[in-house]
């Protein structure tokens, strides 16, 4: 049954340190309020998975020392490009990086969604990526008469999917619209925790037009209201990124000291998310 939490802080208390957490890219559903709560509580040892890439939220978590491993096809902050704390952490060797490619991450999650050990994936062959992936196997296509090589990508089963969505209802259903990567994430994960911008008046599954974009409560373990909860990243179909704020971040986060100042001001201060 889906639990409704009054506070985002309580919601994220359901994320143990060292969890493997699936996160959406900046153009999808970023639970920034929950990310700030994780930083505030001092989460450590997280393994974050960008589905298929990760942006601002990943850079924040890395900067705050919450991340041990990052598994992703890329780290990029919207239109602004390089993520300063990620770049610095890689340079200093303070985090592990598992470099992937978008369709392989999607395929790994879809394998978990289907309960199969792996999924064959086209492409990839001859890329240096596979040299460093012990969870990818080069195998032969058993349906080909010739010796056609293929990459088999191991299933990816996150402990937790943590996302922000525009709408949720009191029954625990959450609406992701066309951003269905979040549905795959929820299906594939052991637990799914969600923050949402607005409470939907009614049941999302009973509305013929809303149901197709809804993750049923069956897959949703916990929920908390977080108005404007994707700020400053923006929420698809609802509000754009706060570009000015992102620029402030990118400027401050160039250095470790600047990043600390940033989180002091915007995460630890009580008026953080206003």
């Amino acid at each position, binding site marked *: 049954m889906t639990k409704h939490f009054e506070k985002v802080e309580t919601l994220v208390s359901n994320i143990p340190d060292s969890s493997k957490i699936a996160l959406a*890219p900046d*153009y999808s559903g970023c639970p920034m309020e929950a990310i700030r709560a994780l930083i505030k509580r001092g989460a450590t040892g997280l393994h974050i998975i960008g589905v*298929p890439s990760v942006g601002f939220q990943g850079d924040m978590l890395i900067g705050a020392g919450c991340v041990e491993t990052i598994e992703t096809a890329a780290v*990029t902050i919207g239109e602004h490009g*390089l993520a300063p704390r990620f770049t610095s952490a890689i340079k200093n060797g303070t985090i592990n990086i598992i470099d992937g*490619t978008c369709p392989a991450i999607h395929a790994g999650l879809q394998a978990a969604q289907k309960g199969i050990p792996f999924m064959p994936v086209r492409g990839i062959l001859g*890329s240096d*990526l596979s040299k460093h992936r012990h969870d990818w196997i080069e195998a032969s296509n058993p349906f080909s008469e010739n010796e056609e090589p293929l990459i088999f990508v191991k299933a990816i089963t996150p402990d937790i999917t943590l996302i922000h969505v525009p709408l949720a209802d009191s029954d625990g259903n959450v609406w992701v619209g*066309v951003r*269905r990567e979040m549905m795959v994430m929820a299906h594939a994960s052991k637990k799914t925790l969600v923050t949402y911008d607005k409470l939907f008046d009614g049941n999302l599954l009973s509305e013929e037009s809303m149901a197709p974009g809804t993750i049923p409560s069956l897959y949703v373990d916990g929920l908390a209201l977080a108005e404007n909860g994707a700020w400053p990243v923006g929420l698809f179909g609802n509000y754009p990124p706060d570009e000015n704020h992102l620029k402030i971040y990118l400027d401050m986060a160039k250095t470790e000291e600047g990043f600390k100042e940033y989180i002091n001001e915007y995460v630890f201060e009580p008026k953080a998310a206003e």
Partner: protein
Amino acid sequence: MSEVIKKEEMLIFVISEMLKGMRHVAVGASSPIPGGAALLARANSSTDFRVSMLGSEEHNTFTNGGTELFDCAAQGRIDAFFLGGGQIDGSANINLVGIGDYPDTKVRFPGSFGSAYLYYLVPRVILFREEHTPRALVPKVDFISAPGTSPDNVNRPGGPYALVTERCVFRFDKKKARFRLESIHPGHSLEEIIEMTGFEFDEPSTIRETKPPSSDTLKLIRGKIADEISETYPAFSSKIFGS
């Protein structure tokens, strides 16, 4: 209207010329110039021309989440796509990961995104790297995010078609696995290009100058295209077109 053609306008036009006759062009993340080129090619097309742009809400008809772009390419429904690279070498290998000994790269790029997939599956992949220096165009990339060519037994309907930079256009010869200089943008010279390119390439017997956009096309770029691209790339659009 100023007839001084900005570099970005020139590049949008040059790339759009390579998209003639396409039915479906997809544009990845953080790609304002290829995005503008795709929208320009669509505006100039008399036949059905579809643009799918990652990050756009207006020019994105996908309804099956993040996996659809890749599935769609695997189904053969995408004719052209764009890739860049922190490093690109003379065999069209691209590096979107970093410089130095992986994983302890001394310079880290954002990551491979979907390159290690779309480069194999989309028939016409246009490499685009604005910076044309020996640092960007190298003899051999430090890390292969995706290779320019593959052995015959690899199922690979796609691959590199051309490389467009701020200075010139290279076409890729798949059999030779090598670039050939196609045209030099106005204001640039062969000597400069040889000097600024870290890899070897074939030279044609006569050097062609890259055709700039007509004044009508320029108007289109600065009007309709600037407007359309600003939805996805507001910062780019306001910087280049002041809109």
